[in-house]
Protein backbone atom coordinates (compact mmCIF):
# COMPACT_ATOMS: atom_id res chain seq x y z
CA UNK A 1 0.00 0.00 0.00
CA UNK A 2 2.99 2.33 0.39
CA UNK A 3 3.58 2.19 -3.34
CA UNK A 4 0.00 3.02 -4.19
CA UNK A 5 -0.87 6.63 -4.79
CA UNK A 6 -4.38 7.24 -3.57
CA UNK A 7 -6.53 7.83 -6.64
CA UNK A 8 -8.37 11.10 -7.05
CA UNK A 9 -12.13 11.07 -6.73
CA UNK A 10 -12.47 11.62 -10.47
CA UNK A 11 -12.20 8.50 -12.58
CA UNK A 12 -8.58 7.34 -12.81
CA UNK A 13 -7.09 7.08 -16.32
CA UNK A 14 -7.49 3.78 -18.11
CA UNK A 15 -3.78 2.95 -17.92
CA UNK A 16 -3.84 2.90 -14.14
CA UNK A 17 -7.21 1.13 -14.01
CA UNK A 18 -5.63 -2.36 -13.82
CA UNK A 19 -3.34 -1.25 -11.00
CA UNK A 20 -6.27 0.33 -9.24
CA UNK A 21 -8.38 -2.81 -9.52
CA UNK A 22 -5.64 -5.25 -8.62
CA UNK A 23 -4.76 -3.62 -5.31
CA UNK A 24 -8.51 -3.46 -4.76
CA UNK A 25 -8.61 -7.20 -5.02
CA UNK A 26 -5.50 -7.63 -2.94
CA UNK A 27 -6.65 -5.17 -0.37
CA UNK A 28 -9.96 -6.87 -0.15
CA UNK A 29 -8.29 -10.11 0.73
CA UNK A 30 -5.69 -8.51 2.93
CA UNK A 31 -8.05 -6.70 5.20
CA UNK A 32 -7.58 -7.71 8.81
CA UNK A 33 -11.00 -9.27 8.81
CA UNK A 34 -12.91 -10.04 5.65
CA UNK A 35 -15.70 -7.59 5.36
CA UNK A 36 -18.82 -9.44 4.47
CA UNK A 37 -21.77 -7.14 4.77
CA UNK A 38 -22.67 -8.23 8.26
CA UNK A 39 -19.18 -7.55 9.52
CA UNK A 40 -18.95 -4.07 8.20
CA UNK A 41 -19.70 -2.71 11.65
CA UNK A 42 -18.92 -5.60 13.92
CA UNK A 43 -15.30 -5.54 12.96
CA UNK A 44 -15.06 -1.97 14.13
CA UNK A 45 -17.13 -2.66 17.21
CA UNK A 46 -14.88 -5.38 18.58
CA UNK A 47 -13.50 -2.66 20.79
CA UNK A 48 -16.83 -1.40 21.99
CA UNK A 49 -18.78 -4.58 22.57
CA UNK A 50 -16.67 -7.17 24.32
CA UNK A 51 -18.40 -10.24 25.73
CA UNK A 52 -19.32 -8.82 29.07
CA UNK A 53 -20.67 -11.27 31.56
CA UNK A 54 -21.67 -11.43 35.18
CA UNK A 55 -20.60 -14.19 37.47
CA UNK A 56 -17.93 -16.80 37.15
CA UNK A 57 -16.75 -18.32 33.92
CA UNK A 58 -14.32 -21.14 33.41
CA UNK A 59 -13.31 -22.32 29.95
CA UNK A 60 -11.12 -25.24 29.20
CA UNK A 61 -10.03 -25.79 25.64
CA UNK A 62 -8.47 -29.05 24.69
CA UNK A 63 -6.65 -29.41 21.42
CA UNK A 64 -6.69 -33.00 20.26
CA UNK A 65 -5.50 -32.30 16.79
CA UNK A 66 -4.63 -29.12 14.90
CA UNK A 67 -8.10 -29.40 13.44
CA UNK A 68 -10.19 -30.83 16.22
CA UNK A 69 -10.75 -28.98 19.46
CA UNK A 70 -12.97 -29.80 22.41
CA UNK A 71 -14.05 -27.24 24.92
CA UNK A 72 -15.64 -27.47 28.33
CA UNK A 73 -17.11 -24.37 29.79
CA UNK A 74 -18.66 -23.69 33.14
CA UNK A 75 -20.71 -20.64 33.99
CA UNK A 76 -22.34 -19.61 37.25
CA UNK A 77 -24.04 -16.32 37.62
CA UNK A 78 -27.22 -14.35 37.30
CA UNK A 79 -28.74 -14.07 33.86
CA UNK A 80 -30.98 -11.24 32.97
CA UNK A 81 -34.39 -11.95 31.56
CA UNK A 82 -36.09 -9.27 29.53
CA UNK A 83 -38.87 -7.62 31.44
CA UNK A 84 -41.38 -4.97 30.48
CA UNK A 85 -40.83 -2.88 33.58
CA UNK A 86 -37.75 -0.76 34.04
CA UNK A 87 -36.46 -3.09 36.75
CA UNK A 88 -34.01 -5.74 35.69
CA UNK A 89 -34.89 -9.27 36.72
CA UNK A 90 -32.01 -11.61 37.25
CA UNK A 91 -32.17 -15.32 37.78
CA UNK A 92 -29.15 -17.21 39.07
CA UNK A 93 -28.19 -19.92 36.63
CA UNK A 94 -25.39 -22.39 36.34
CA UNK A 95 -24.60 -24.42 33.31
CA UNK A 96 -21.97 -26.56 31.76
CA UNK A 97 -21.37 -26.30 28.09
CA UNK A 98 -19.62 -28.88 25.97
CA UNK A 99 -18.23 -27.82 22.68
CA UNK A 100 -16.62 -29.53 19.73
CA UNK A 101 -14.98 -27.69 16.87
CA UNK A 102 -13.64 -29.09 13.68
CA UNK A 103 -11.69 -26.68 11.51
CA UNK A 104 -10.62 -27.58 8.05
CA UNK A 105 -9.79 -25.06 5.37
CA UNK A 106 -12.89 -26.18 3.51
CA UNK A 107 -15.20 -27.29 6.30
CA UNK A 108 -15.79 -25.81 9.69
CA UNK A 109 -18.10 -27.36 12.24
CA UNK A 110 -18.80 -25.70 15.53
CA UNK A 111 -21.14 -27.15 18.10
CA UNK A 112 -21.98 -26.14 21.63
CA UNK A 113 -24.31 -28.09 23.82
CA UNK A 114 -25.61 -26.82 27.15
CA UNK A 115 -26.94 -28.78 30.07
CA UNK A 116 -30.48 -27.57 29.45
CA UNK A 117 -30.46 -29.15 26.05
CA UNK A 118 -29.80 -26.12 23.92
CA UNK A 119 -27.59 -26.69 20.92
CA UNK A 120 -25.76 -23.93 19.16
CA UNK A 121 -24.41 -25.22 15.87
CA UNK A 122 -22.52 -23.48 13.08
CA UNK A 123 -21.40 -24.97 9.83
CA UNK A 124 -19.29 -23.37 7.14
CA UNK A 125 -18.68 -25.27 3.96
CA UNK A 126 -16.71 -24.10 0.96
CA UNK A 127 -18.78 -25.49 -1.83
CA UNK A 128 -16.39 -24.15 -4.41
CA UNK A 129 -13.61 -21.61 -4.48
CA UNK A 130 -15.93 -18.67 -4.38
CA UNK A 131 -19.15 -20.06 -3.02
CA UNK A 132 -19.54 -20.67 0.69
CA UNK A 133 -22.47 -22.02 2.62
CA UNK A 134 -22.77 -20.93 6.20
CA UNK A 135 -25.51 -22.20 8.45
CA UNK A 136 -26.19 -21.67 12.07
CA UNK A 137 -28.90 -22.97 14.30
CA UNK A 138 -30.00 -22.58 17.88
CA UNK A 139 -32.04 -25.61 18.76
CA UNK A 140 -33.90 -26.03 22.00
CA UNK A 141 -36.12 -28.65 23.47
CA UNK A 142 -38.96 -26.18 23.77
CA UNK A 143 -41.13 -26.25 20.68
CA UNK A 144 -41.22 -23.19 18.45
CA UNK A 145 -38.18 -21.68 20.08
CA UNK A 146 -35.58 -23.00 17.68
CA UNK A 147 -34.16 -20.88 14.97
CA UNK A 148 -31.83 -21.45 12.10
CA UNK A 149 -30.32 -19.48 9.30
CA UNK A 150 -28.45 -20.42 6.16
CA UNK A 151 -26.32 -18.06 4.11
CA UNK A 152 -24.96 -18.57 0.66
CA UNK A 153 -21.96 -16.31 0.08
CA UNK A 154 -20.47 -15.66 -3.27
CA UNK A 155 -17.13 -13.94 -3.31
CA UNK A 156 -16.25 -12.20 -6.52
CA UNK A 157 -13.05 -10.39 -7.46
CA UNK A 158 -13.93 -7.22 -5.63
CA UNK A 159 -17.43 -7.82 -4.43
CA UNK A 160 -19.36 -10.14 -2.23
CA UNK A 161 -22.95 -11.11 -2.40
CA UNK A 162 -24.96 -13.11 0.04
CA UNK A 163 -28.35 -14.71 0.11
CA UNK A 164 -29.93 -15.59 3.44
CA UNK A 165 -32.69 -17.99 4.36
CA UNK A 166 -33.95 -18.14 7.89
CA UNK A 167 -36.53 -19.84 10.00
CA UNK A 168 -39.74 -17.92 10.29
CA UNK A 169 -39.72 -17.24 6.56
CA UNK A 170 -36.81 -14.84 6.66
CA UNK A 171 -35.26 -14.00 3.33
CA UNK A 172 -32.42 -11.59 2.86
CA UNK A 173 -29.83 -10.63 0.33
CA UNK A 174 -26.94 -8.27 0.49
CA UNK A 175 -24.21 -7.08 -1.78
CA UNK A 176 -21.04 -5.18 -1.10
CA UNK A 177 -18.62 -3.82 -3.64
CA UNK A 178 -15.17 -2.31 -3.31
CA UNK A 179 -15.31 1.00 -5.05
CA UNK A 180 -11.79 2.24 -4.36
CA UNK A 181 -9.00 0.55 -2.42
CA UNK A 182 -10.32 2.18 0.69
CA UNK A 183 -14.02 2.55 0.17
CA UNK A 184 -16.64 -0.11 -0.14
CA UNK A 185 -20.35 0.35 -0.50
CA UNK A 186 -23.09 -2.13 -0.04
CA UNK A 187 -26.80 -2.63 0.29
CA UNK A 188 -29.19 -5.19 1.65
CA UNK A 189 -32.83 -6.16 1.47
CA UNK A 190 -34.68 -8.49 3.76
CA UNK A 191 -38.17 -9.81 4.18
CA UNK A 192 -39.37 -11.34 7.43
CA UNK A 193 -42.48 -13.37 6.80
CA UNK A 194 -43.38 -14.02 10.39
CA UNK A 195 -43.41 -10.38 11.38
CA UNK A 196 -44.52 -9.24 7.95
CA UNK A 197 -41.69 -6.77 7.77
CA UNK A 198 -39.38 -5.94 4.94
CA UNK A 199 -36.54 -3.55 4.79
CA UNK A 200 -33.76 -2.18 2.72
CA UNK A 201 -30.50 -0.79 3.93
CA UNK A 202 -27.25 0.74 2.71
CA UNK A 203 -23.80 0.68 4.18
CA UNK A 204 -20.48 2.28 3.44
CA UNK A 205 -17.07 1.58 4.83
CA UNK A 206 -13.95 3.64 4.42
CA UNK A 207 -10.74 2.30 5.80
CA UNK A 208 -7.09 3.11 5.66
CA UNK A 209 -4.21 1.72 7.67
CA UNK A 210 -4.99 4.01 10.52
CA UNK A 211 -8.72 4.24 10.69
CA UNK A 212 -11.99 2.65 9.76
CA UNK A 213 -15.17 4.63 9.34
CA UNK A 214 -18.47 2.97 8.62
CA UNK A 215 -21.99 4.15 8.19
CA UNK A 216 -25.19 2.22 7.84
CA UNK A 217 -28.76 3.27 7.19
CA UNK A 218 -31.75 0.98 7.16
CA UNK A 219 -35.40 1.48 6.41
CA UNK A 220 -36.24 0.06 9.83
CA UNK A 221 -35.19 3.45 11.06
CA UNK A 222 -31.68 2.67 12.14
CA UNK A 223 -28.74 4.89 11.42
CA UNK A 224 -25.40 3.67 12.73
CA UNK A 225 -22.07 5.39 12.32
CA UNK A 226 -18.79 4.27 13.75
CA UNK A 227 -15.21 5.36 13.67
CA UNK A 228 -12.15 3.45 14.84
CA UNK A 229 -8.74 5.02 14.94
CA UNK A 230 -5.64 2.96 15.39
CA UNK A 231 -3.39 5.23 17.36
CA UNK A 232 -0.53 2.76 17.50
CA UNK A 233 0.08 -0.97 17.31
CA UNK A 234 -1.14 -1.33 20.82
CA UNK A 235 -3.86 1.23 21.18
CA UNK A 236 -6.98 1.88 19.23
CA UNK A 237 -9.86 4.16 20.01
CA UNK A 238 -13.39 3.70 18.80
CA UNK A 239 -16.58 5.65 18.83
CA UNK A 240 -20.04 4.74 17.78
CA UNK A 241 -23.30 6.54 17.20
CA UNK A 242 -26.62 4.81 16.80
CA UNK A 243 -29.84 6.61 16.06
CA UNK A 244 -33.26 5.19 15.39
CA UNK A 245 -35.39 7.77 13.69
CA UNK A 246 -38.59 5.82 14.23
CA UNK A 247 -38.30 5.42 17.95
CA UNK A 248 -36.09 8.48 18.53
CA UNK A 249 -33.54 6.44 20.39
CA UNK A 250 -30.00 7.74 20.47
CA UNK A 251 -26.90 6.06 21.81
CA UNK A 252 -23.36 7.27 21.52
CA UNK A 253 -20.39 5.47 22.94
CA UNK A 254 -16.67 5.96 23.08
CA UNK A 255 -14.18 3.25 23.87
CA UNK A 256 -10.59 2.17 23.85
CA UNK A 257 -8.80 -1.06 23.12
CA UNK A 258 -5.31 -1.66 24.46
CA UNK A 259 -3.60 -4.74 23.11
CA UNK A 260 -0.53 -5.13 25.24
CA UNK A 261 1.94 -7.93 25.53
CA UNK A 262 0.35 -9.65 28.46
CA UNK A 263 -3.17 -8.38 28.36
CA UNK A 264 -5.97 -6.92 26.35
CA UNK A 265 -7.98 -4.19 27.98
CA UNK A 266 -11.14 -2.77 26.48
CA UNK A 267 -13.30 -0.13 27.99
CA UNK A 268 -16.16 2.05 26.96
CA UNK A 269 -18.50 4.70 28.17
CA UNK A 270 -21.97 5.22 26.88
CA UNK A 271 -24.47 8.02 26.64
CA UNK A 272 -26.93 5.81 28.54
CA UNK A 273 -24.78 6.25 31.61
CA UNK A 274 -23.15 2.88 31.22
CA UNK A 275 -19.44 2.20 31.56
CA UNK A 276 -17.88 -1.14 30.90
CA UNK A 277 -14.43 -2.66 30.97
CA UNK A 278 -13.09 -6.02 29.97
CA UNK A 279 -9.65 -7.32 30.78
CA UNK A 280 -8.02 -10.47 29.51
CA UNK A 281 -4.72 -11.08 31.21
CA UNK A 282 -2.32 -13.73 30.12
CA UNK A 283 -0.95 -15.23 33.29
CA UNK A 284 1.04 -17.93 31.62
CA UNK A 285 1.12 -19.80 28.34
CA UNK A 286 -2.38 -21.06 27.84
CA UNK A 287 -3.78 -19.54 31.03
CA UNK A 288 -5.86 -16.39 30.76
CA UNK A 289 -7.60 -14.50 33.47
CA UNK A 290 -10.70 -12.52 32.55
CA UNK A 291 -12.33 -9.67 34.41
CA UNK A 292 -15.51 -8.03 33.22
CA UNK A 293 -17.31 -5.05 34.68
CA UNK A 294 -20.37 -3.18 33.54
CA UNK A 295 -21.83 -0.37 35.56
CA UNK A 296 -25.13 1.10 34.49
CA UNK A 297 -25.64 4.23 36.52
CA UNK A 298 -29.07 5.00 35.13
CA UNK A 299 -30.62 1.63 35.90
CA UNK A 300 -28.41 1.10 38.94
CA UNK A 301 -27.35 -2.27 37.61
CA UNK A 302 -23.83 -3.36 38.50
CA UNK A 303 -22.35 -6.41 36.89
CA UNK A 304 -19.00 -7.87 37.71
CA UNK A 305 -17.58 -11.08 36.47
CA UNK A 306 -14.38 -13.02 36.60
CA UNK A 307 -13.16 -16.06 34.81
CA UNK A 308 -10.32 -18.25 33.81
CA UNK A 309 -9.55 -19.66 30.40
CA UNK A 310 -7.27 -22.63 30.15
CA UNK A 311 -5.89 -23.76 26.84
CA UNK A 312 -5.34 -21.78 23.68
Amino acid sequence: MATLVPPATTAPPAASKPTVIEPEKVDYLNLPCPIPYEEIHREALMSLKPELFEGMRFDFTKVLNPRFVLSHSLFMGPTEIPSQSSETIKIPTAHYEFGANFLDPRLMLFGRLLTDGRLNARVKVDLSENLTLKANAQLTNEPHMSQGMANFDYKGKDYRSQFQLGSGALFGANYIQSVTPNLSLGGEVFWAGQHRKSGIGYAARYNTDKMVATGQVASTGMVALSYVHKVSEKVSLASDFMYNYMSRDVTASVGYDYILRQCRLRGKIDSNGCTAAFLEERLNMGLNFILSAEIDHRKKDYKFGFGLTVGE
Partner: protein
Amino acid sequence: MRIEKREMASKVLVKAKGKAGAKGSKGGSGGANESNRWTNTSKCVKDWSTWAIKKAKVVTHYGFIPLVIVIGMNSEPKPSIYQLLSPV
Protein backbone atom coordinates in the same frame (compact mmCIF):
# COMPACT_ATOMS: atom_id res chain seq x y z
CA MET B 1 -49.14 -31.56 26.64
CA ARG B 2 -51.08 -28.49 25.60
CA ILE B 3 -48.87 -27.88 22.59
CA GLU B 4 -49.17 -31.52 21.48
CA LYS B 5 -52.95 -31.27 21.72
CA ARG B 6 -52.84 -28.14 19.56
CA GLU B 7 -50.70 -29.94 16.99
CA MET B 8 -53.04 -32.91 17.05
CA ALA B 9 -55.98 -30.57 16.64
CA SER B 10 -54.36 -28.84 13.69
CA LYS B 11 -53.59 -32.25 12.13
CA VAL B 12 -57.24 -33.27 12.55
CA LEU B 13 -58.36 -29.99 11.00
CA VAL B 14 -56.05 -30.46 8.02
CA LYS B 15 -57.33 -34.01 7.54
CA ALA B 16 -60.93 -32.81 7.74
CA LYS B 17 -60.22 -30.09 5.19
CA GLY B 18 -58.61 -32.66 2.93
CA LYS B 19 -61.68 -34.91 3.16
CA ALA B 20 -64.04 -32.02 2.53
CA GLY B 21 -61.93 -30.96 -0.42
CA ALA B 22 -62.08 -34.47 -1.86
CA LYS B 23 -65.85 -34.59 -1.38
CA GLY B 24 -66.20 -31.20 -2.98
CA SER B 25 -64.12 -32.24 -5.96
CA LYS B 26 -66.24 -35.34 -6.45
CA GLY B 27 -69.45 -33.38 -6.32
CA GLY B 28 -68.16 -30.33 -8.20
CA SER B 29 -67.64 -29.76 -11.90
CA GLY B 30 -64.69 -31.10 -13.86
CA GLY B 31 -63.07 -27.67 -14.08
CA ALA B 32 -62.80 -27.41 -10.31
CA ASN B 33 -60.92 -30.72 -10.20
CA GLU B 34 -57.70 -29.08 -11.39
CA SER B 35 -57.69 -26.36 -8.71
CA ASN B 36 -58.66 -28.84 -5.98
CA ARG B 37 -55.84 -31.11 -7.03
CA TRP B 38 -53.43 -28.19 -6.82
CA THR B 39 -54.62 -27.20 -3.36
CA ASN B 40 -54.41 -30.81 -2.26
CA THR B 41 -50.87 -31.17 -3.58
CA SER B 42 -49.80 -27.90 -2.02
CA LYS B 43 -51.26 -29.06 1.31
CA CYS B 44 -49.44 -32.38 0.97
CA VAL B 45 -46.22 -30.59 0.14
CA LYS B 46 -46.66 -28.29 3.13
CA ASP B 47 -47.41 -31.20 5.46
CA TRP B 48 -44.50 -33.23 4.23
CA SER B 49 -42.09 -30.32 4.39
CA THR B 50 -43.20 -29.55 7.96
CA TRP B 51 -42.73 -33.21 8.87
CA ALA B 52 -39.31 -33.24 7.18
CA ILE B 53 -38.16 -30.10 8.96
CA LYS B 54 -39.32 -31.47 12.31
CA LYS B 55 -37.42 -34.70 11.75
CA ALA B 56 -34.37 -32.77 10.55
CA LYS B 57 -34.47 -30.66 13.68
CA VAL B 58 -34.53 -33.72 15.94
CA VAL B 59 -31.75 -35.38 13.95
CA THR B 60 -29.60 -32.27 14.10
CA HIS B 61 -30.27 -31.76 17.77
CA TYR B 62 -29.14 -35.24 18.72
CA GLY B 63 -26.65 -35.94 16.01
CA PHE B 64 -24.64 -32.79 15.41
CA ILE B 65 -22.14 -33.09 18.23
CA PRO B 66 -21.60 -36.85 17.62
CA LEU B 67 -21.08 -36.00 13.95
CA VAL B 68 -18.42 -33.42 14.77
CA ILE B 69 -16.72 -35.85 17.13
CA VAL B 70 -16.71 -38.65 14.55
CA ILE B 71 -15.32 -36.37 11.88
CA GLY B 72 -12.71 -35.06 14.28
CA MET B 73 -11.61 -38.45 15.50
CA ASN B 74 -11.11 -39.59 11.93
CA SER B 75 -9.00 -36.64 10.87
CA GLU B 76 -5.22 -36.80 10.69
CA PRO B 77 -3.36 -37.17 13.06
CA LYS B 78 -5.83 -39.51 14.68
CA PRO B 79 -6.37 -38.76 18.35
CA SER B 80 -7.11 -41.63 20.69
CA ILE B 81 -10.24 -42.28 22.72
CA TYR B 82 -8.26 -41.66 25.89
CA GLN B 83 -7.45 -38.16 24.69
CA LEU B 84 -11.10 -37.58 23.98
CA LEU B 85 -12.33 -38.62 27.39
CA SER B 86 -9.63 -37.57 29.78
CA PRO B 87 -9.89 -34.14 31.38
CA VAL B 88 -6.21 -33.31 31.01
